[in-house]
Structure formats: structure tokens, C-alpha cells
């Protein structure tokens, strides 16, 4: 391949890179939904963090503000 060639946005290499983008986006949206569901079902933030393999601070930082206003019973949000 000559370095000058402009790649097509839909050739196989571009498809594979686009899959990475789509998967990152999917993972983010899936995480939003999964964390919210677990908390609605009574999981503590600590358990959610453990299940995700991250620190509780990380989960808090990413989701607390979003879910604090949702009608979730977050009594154990600091647990």
C-alpha cells in the first residue's frame, strides 16, 4: 500500500476500526443501564463497583449524579 492512498471509509480496515468505536459506545451505554438496574434491584455501590472490577469512587464519579435524580431508592448509596 502506498502511503499516499486515501483509504475508503468503508473498506475492511475502516470497518474493523469502526467496530472498536461502536463497541466503546456500546460498552458505555450498557454500563449506564446495568449499573442503574443493579441499584434499582438493591445492590450497593460497593457491590456494583466490585462486580465491574473498579473502585467505588470510580462508579460514584461516573453514575452518582445521573442516578441521584432518578427515582431509585439509593439508601445504601454510600455502602
Amino acid at each position, binding site marked *: 500500500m502506498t502511503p499516499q492512498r*486515501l*483509504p*475508503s*471509509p*468503508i473498506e475492511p480496515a*475502516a*470497518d*474493523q*476500526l*469502526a*467496530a472498536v*468505536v*461502536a*463497541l466503546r*459506545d*456500546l460498552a*458505555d*451505554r*450498557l454500563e*449506564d*443501564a*446495568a449499573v*442503574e438496574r443493579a441499584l434499582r434491584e438493591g445492590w450497593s455501590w460497593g457491590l456494583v463497583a466490585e462486580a465491574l472490577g473498579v473502585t467505588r469512587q470510580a462508579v460514584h464519579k461516573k453514575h452518582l*449524579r*445521573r*442516578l441521584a*435524580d*432518578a427515582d431509585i431508592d439509593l439508601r445504601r448509596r454510600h455502602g
Partner: protein
Amino acid sequence: MDEDRLPQSVRGVIADAIAEAQRRAATDVAAEHLLLALTADSGSPAAALLAEFGLDHDAVERALDEERMRSLAVVGIERLDPDLLTATRRGTRPGWAASTREVFRRTQPAGGHGRRRPAMELDLLSGIVTANVGTVPRALAFAGVDRDTLIGRVERARRADDDDRRRPGASAQERQAVRREALQHAQQERREASWEAQRRRREAMRDLRGALDDTARQREDPGRDERGQS
């Protein structure tokens, strides 16, 4: 990216793009959200131009969904339960994706802060559609839009808009933009002249050094010529 430093004329579009990103649950405001924002303002020159290619707000949205679906299909994700992705929307403001920064980098407009909103929108559109790879070019390809034709059309619209502004009676800012261009041109000419002079000096030095070396060699071995002759 510092929003306060953006021209007033694009702030509306930017605000719309942020709303589009939030609506689509994106973590960052990307080029595709700018495109959605431009199509949402029907009646603007940018939206009218996109409509010529069948790209109204709904069509762009469909094209983006199609792009997302096809990209996931590459790794075998074909059917997704939408319930798995249902979540309360993020309240925080999304950040800026690299693609948005690229759009602004590609469309540093000549007139900068003096550009009216319609002209700025065409500048933005130009920055969006000239991307070679990424989500937007993919979505356009899947929507059956010929990218080169679209780019040509956008550039024609921008030129027509510029010609309008160059007519006599242009505003002070526009005259300043023309002056700045002339100044840059003159600077470039001076720079090229100085490069040329430097090149000539370097050549002269090389010749001179060559001549000196020859003389030095002869001085180190003064008998060489005589020996060669004997």
C-alpha cells in the same frame, strides 16, 4: 475546547450539538452531532444544501443508526435487546470528541469572529464533510451520498457566499480579512525570496570552500605536480 472563544455565530449550533449528543446518550459531542444540529435548523443554507442530498434530520439520524449497526455487525453483534441499553440520561455535559476538534481545525474561517451565522454554518459543514474516515463519512456512504459531490457542492456554496461579501460596501471586518490575506501573501513572497538568497549564498560558499580545499591540497604537497611530470 473553550466555548467562550468560539464565534458568537456558532454558539447556537454548538448548543444544539450538545443536546443531540445527550439525546443519543453519547459521552462526547462528536462531528455527527454537529451534522445533526445543522440539519435541525431547517431554513438555514447548510440544512437546505444537505436536503438536496436527501439529508434532513431524520435521514441523518437513520444513517447514523445504520452505521452503528453495521459496525457492530463486523464483530458479530447483530441483535441487541434495546432493554439492555435503557438508562436514565446523563445529566452532565458531554465532553468534546476528537472529531469535533478536527472539524474546527479544518474550518478555521478567514473572517473568524466576523462571520455571520449562515456563513459559519457552511464553514462547519465543510469541516464535517471533508473528513476522510470515521463515523460521518461511513454514515454518508451507507446513506448512498457521494462524498466528493457533496464536498464540491459545499465549497461552491461557500465561494458564492464569499463573493457576496467581497462586493463594495463590505464591512470593516471583511475588509480587514482581505487586508490580512494580502499581508500574508506579501510575507510569503518575502520568505521565498529570502530562501532563494540563502540557497544562492550556500552555493557560493560551497564553491569557495571547494576552491580553498584545492589550494590547500596543493600547498600540503607542493611537489606533487612536479613529480607527476617527471
